């Protein structure tokens, strides 16, 4: 069900979370990608040639308040495939009320919303799912052993409504997430649930 998910980048200068997130986003409709200015300065601006879709609207917000406003405007619109918002640090504007508003709006319009926190700490939030994502060493490249292969992620679901938390090292291949290493049997069921 589309809702608000919060995603913490374990390391702010690690762009790995974007691959994890984009693997779960549909691209049939335009995408709204909001970045606040600090996030752009610290970890770069999105680069359309590297993204799965070119059909997107990018918003460069002055601060977290504008970014949250833009996200809320976008989430209310059912014509978007998803809204992704990146906020740097722990802005004051981002409180429980703000996240709760986003969550309710996302559930009402059916537009999934991803709130990405770079260099922030998890505090009270209305998000239905809270992830902590870091890059993991990539898979073996079949063509060149010394080159990076398919990306893998160390994803931890530390808070979720209606499902147990867990931690997996996963990769995305041929439209499916699959486990890479180091998880128990129970995790495999969970993993099936997240195959987009």
């Amino acid at each position: 069900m589309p809702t608000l998910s919060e995603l913490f980048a374990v390391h702010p200068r690690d762009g790995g979370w974007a691959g994890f997130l984009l693997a779960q986003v549909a691209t049939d409709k335009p995408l709204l990608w909001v970045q606040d200015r600090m996030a752009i300065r610290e970890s770069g601006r999105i680069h359309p040639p590297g993204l799965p879709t070119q059909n997107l609207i990018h918003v460069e917000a002055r601060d977290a308040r504008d970014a949250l406003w833009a996200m809320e405007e976008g989430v209310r619109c059912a014509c978007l495939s998803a809204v992704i918002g990146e906020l740097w640090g722990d802005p004051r504007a981002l409180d429980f009320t703000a996240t709760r508003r986003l969550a309710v709006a996302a559930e009402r319009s059916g537009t999934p919303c991803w709130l990405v926190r770079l260099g922030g700490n998890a505090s009270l939030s209305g998000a239905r799912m809270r992830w902590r994502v870091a890059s993991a060493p990539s898979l073996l490249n079949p063509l060149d052993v010394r080159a990076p292969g398919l990306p893998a992620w160390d994803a931890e679901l530390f808070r979720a409504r209606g499902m147990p938390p867990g931690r997996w090292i996963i990769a995305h291949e041929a439209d499916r997430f699959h486990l890479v290493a180091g998880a128990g049997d129970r995790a495999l069921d969970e993993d099936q649930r997240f195959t987009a």
Partner: protein
Amino acid sequence: MPELAIERWTKTSDSPPDAPVVLTVEGTHGPVIHAVTRVAAERGARPGARLADARALDPALIALPADPTSDAALVERLARWAGRWSPLVEVDGDPSTSFGTGGLRLDVSGVAHLFGGEDGLVRDIRDCFARIGLTAGVAIAPTALAAWALARFPSPLCGRGSTRAKRERGERACQTRTSAPLPGAAGRRLSLPHGGGRDLLEQLSPLPVSALRLDADTVRTLERLGLKTIGALLSVPRLALARRFRGAEDVVDALDRALGRKPEPLTAAPVEPPPRALLKLEEPATHPEAASQALERLIPKLVHQLQERHLGARRLSLTGYRVDGSVGVASVATAIPSREPKHLQRLLADKAAALNPEFGFDAFALTADWTEDLGAAQDSLVEEPSGERELARLVDRLTVKLGERAVGRPRAEESHLPERASGWVSAVMASPSPLCGGGKEARSARRERRQAAVSPFSPTPLPQGGEGRKPQRLLDRPEAIDVIYATPEGMPRRFMWRRAVHDIARVEGPERIAPEWWRQPSSTRLRDYYRVEDASGRRYWIYREGLIADGRGGAPAWFIHGLFG
């Protein structure tokens, strides 16, 4: 335009072309012929004659009522169309009442060179009128009246304009030096150098006096006096002429206008003004909500106008006129044409509230500066607007609040350099179609077109080999990093970015991107890009700028440019 009436009739009716048709208007003593077809003219029908007289010559004439209103409307339309030649176009005379005086008057000062000189202009006008099936007599002269005369009465000496063998009528262009009101003394001189005062005299002299656009009685009087041509008229002393012809039938005045001694201003047909709603206040309003309240009252008025003209606003501006003579303006743009009151009001509300009344507003105007056609459409039967419109409204709202530069859509550029290849274009200015579904094809088609049209090179698309070939994030400005490498031209081993050390575990590269020598200075160095992965799995895009001994600077420097997801 006597030909105009019959030509318009021939175009709209489906009768055989050889029918002896005459168009009639009601005169004081029964119907009067207004226009005749060629066949009818051969049988003796003449415009201005009574229908009964023409019937006496040939009883087979078919008489139909003329439609002067539609003729006048056509001339109006032609006047707008003639704006292609000159910005100043005037409908001359009233084709519905006076026979054959209808025409267009163009001020072509400073315009002719665009069409290859005055001859080229005349040819172009004639060709265009011939293409739409209207007979046109064209003449360029230094004064309006002279052009009028030359277009209607072919001068035996004239080389230009009135040489048309066909019944020359209707269209007439004049280079009126006197079109702007001139001080009386200067007017006499000004017209003469242009078009040659002597030429003008020579061309006008052999013309009949009716070419001076005098009324019929005056012309008859003059002809009875033996003054049949303008030349003859000029030889009579001015004083005698002025004494004999007084009041309305002022022959001297007509002569002066024809020769440029007196100004004859040209009044251009008005351009249709943009939709505008105005609100005047009884007393200056100084409270801060004045603009918002005015907006609430102006929007319905403007929307009504837009509805009537089937337009949608692309840019709106609210102007507040202050009592001290200054103005405050708030304007917004929309991504697709719109005339929905709620949406427009929502867009303008914030900006209107920010208008500072200072000493008080005493009037407001809401103008749709930029409009596009928008048919009368119902959104939908149920309360759910289409995705495209909704998206455009979202873009509008974002742009109004955050600024035009903050809301962008990707635009592919013709370049190998990553920071150049992906540009951003303001979302509100981008055409709305690619926003909605199927935009990808439209965009790629556009890119192909641009490739074909603009670039002298057609670079092949970069190999999209493995997934994640391109980084998902790009730093606005590549940042310098310290790199440790095994050999100067070899793979990097470790780098330091923002005081954090990254041990490189895996690396792929280089991917060499040469500088764009046709755009960049010759000292620009090439870039060798490497995809690197550090020990904890983070993937970066780094490059080495230049080679050792490439003769473009010292040791190569390293930069980080992107992050992989």
